């Protein structure tokens, strides 16, 4: 019984060594998953550096939606692998991450939007992802609280129904990876800011930190929100603009909303957590910024928009709101892989509004890339060279707003 009151140690603090084989910058889900997968492959001597506490960045600020109903075949195949890892994560990492596959509805309020959803449904089905277009009679069964009448200015006409989609406890995912990586010998160093990256002759040799210089064979940029500032340390400019993204949480209500609801037309998405709170978010703020402060205009607009979908929550109070910083790429797809002409530097950046759901598969692919030196087929399309070659992966239709 006394054991119940013992403080649980998720990971062990270890001294900062002078050199590591792999230094991963950013202890969010991406960095920690990469470290864990590398350790599983037998790579030892790995450090994960974090300037604040573990999961303090976008891994702790996202709205925890997991789904794979994207638009490009490359994107759908990639995110689908992540959903599959999330489905087994509680068992594999021995921690209850509370993955609740309650279904995901993306609403269409115009004829054009229905056409867009049909394209996504077809691509999803061809890739083996459960996803289809449904109409108000079925929407009413799945989400009776949604106003399907002609009262709203933009009535709901159809929805893309994605049954495997759902929500998860994002902090638990970060802790599960941190604990599993630590048990395999990965050094996790919170409150260790990277101030520079040592490189010369096209080879990265280590990093300077607030706690001293560290030699490294490979340096991984697994940051979100600050990817451009880390890349600038090796003289690299990325096709990224950082925008804030805001969300808010209401007081808890009795469970009344099963699926995650998304509307690009209304610029809002909402889900009900297991605690009963409604998590409401919107599109990124329309200007670049690294500020994490939230705004009243966002709360006003989101409240007005969500009431178009769920008029019954008009008297519900807002508990808190917050913001995170999203690294937006021109095509709303991430950038993963090696950088031509710079040995020992790996990118896992540009995660915009879709980074959390991709963490597990991204970590697995980046680990394979570092371990074997060969880019896995799954992430080949996401190379930084796609901007020069014009092989963009346009995901804006599926990634904006719906996260």
């Amino acid at each position, binding site marked *: 019984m006394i054991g119940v009151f013992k403080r649980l140690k998720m990971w062990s603090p270890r001294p900062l060594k002078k050199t590591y084989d792999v230094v991963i910058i950013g202890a969010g889900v991406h960095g920690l998953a990469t470290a864990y997968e590398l350790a599983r492959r037998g790579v030892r001597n790995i450090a994960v550096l974090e300037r604040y506490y573990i999961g303090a960045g976008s891994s702790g600020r996202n709205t925890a939606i997991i789904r794979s109903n994207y638009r490009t075949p490359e994107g759908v195949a990639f995110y689908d692998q992540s959903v599959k890892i999330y489905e087994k994560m509680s068992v594999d990492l021995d921690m209850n991450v509370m993955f609740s596959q309650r279904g995901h509805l993306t609403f269409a309020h115009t004829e054009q939007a229905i056409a867009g959803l049909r394209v996504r449904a077809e691509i999803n089905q061809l890739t083996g992802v459960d996803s289809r277009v449904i109409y108000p009679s079925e929407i009413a069964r799945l989400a009776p609280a949604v106003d399907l009448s002609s009262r709203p200015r933009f009535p709901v006409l159809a929805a893309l129904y994605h049954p495997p989609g759902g929500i998860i406890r994002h902090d638990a995912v970060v802790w599960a990876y941190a604990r599993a990586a630590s048990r395999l010998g990965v050094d996790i160093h919170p409150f260790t800011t990277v101030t520079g990256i040592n490189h010369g002759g096209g080879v990265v040799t280590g990093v300077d930190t607030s706690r001293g210089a560290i030699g490294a064979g490979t340096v991984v940029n697994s940051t979100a929100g*600050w990817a*451009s*500032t880390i890349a*600038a340390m090796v003289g690299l*400019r*990325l*096709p*990224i*603009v*950082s925008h*804030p993204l805001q969300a808010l949480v209401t007081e808890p209500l009795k469970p009344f909303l099963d699926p995650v609801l998304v509307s690009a037309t209304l610029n809002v998405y909402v889900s009900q957590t297991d605690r009963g709170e409604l998590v409401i978010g919107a599109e990124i703020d*329309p*200007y*670049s*910024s*690294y*500020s994490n*402060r*939230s*705004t*009243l*205009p966002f709360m006003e607009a989101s409240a007005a928009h969500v009431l178009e979908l769920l008029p019954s929550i008009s008297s519900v109070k807002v508990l808190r709101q917050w*913001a995170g910083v999203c690294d937006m790429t*021109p095509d709303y797809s991430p950038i993963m892989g090696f950088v031509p002409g710079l040995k020992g530097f790996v990118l896992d950046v540009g995660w915009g509004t879709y980074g959390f759901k991709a963490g597990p598969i991204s970590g697995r692919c980046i680990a394979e890339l570092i371990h074997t030196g060969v880019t896995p087929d799954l992430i080949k399309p996401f190379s930084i060279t796609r*901007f*020069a070659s014009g092989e963009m992966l346009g995901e804006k239709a599926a990634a904006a707003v719906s996260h």
Partner: protein
Amino acid sequence: MSFLLPCPQCGPRDVYEFRYGGEAQRRPAPGSPRSTWTAYLYDRTNAAGVEDAWWYHRLGCKRWFRAVRDTRDNTVLKSTAPTVPPRDANDPPGD
């Protein structure tokens, strides 16, 4: 965070009246190599600090201007209307 942006024509206004036009950069000369154009089109400094960017006052005077802003806390240090006329039709205003 929300903030006031001083339009050179209209004075300080809510940032939601404006469209953000991206960081100011110099357009490459015609005939520049493809890599230069790729960098111009896609690569950004994306500074966590002082940034000189284009803004459009969509709900006001409907003019473009430049504002120097600290992107970490959205403090606007300076905003200026473009004064130098375009060199030719291919150049952006004020460059």
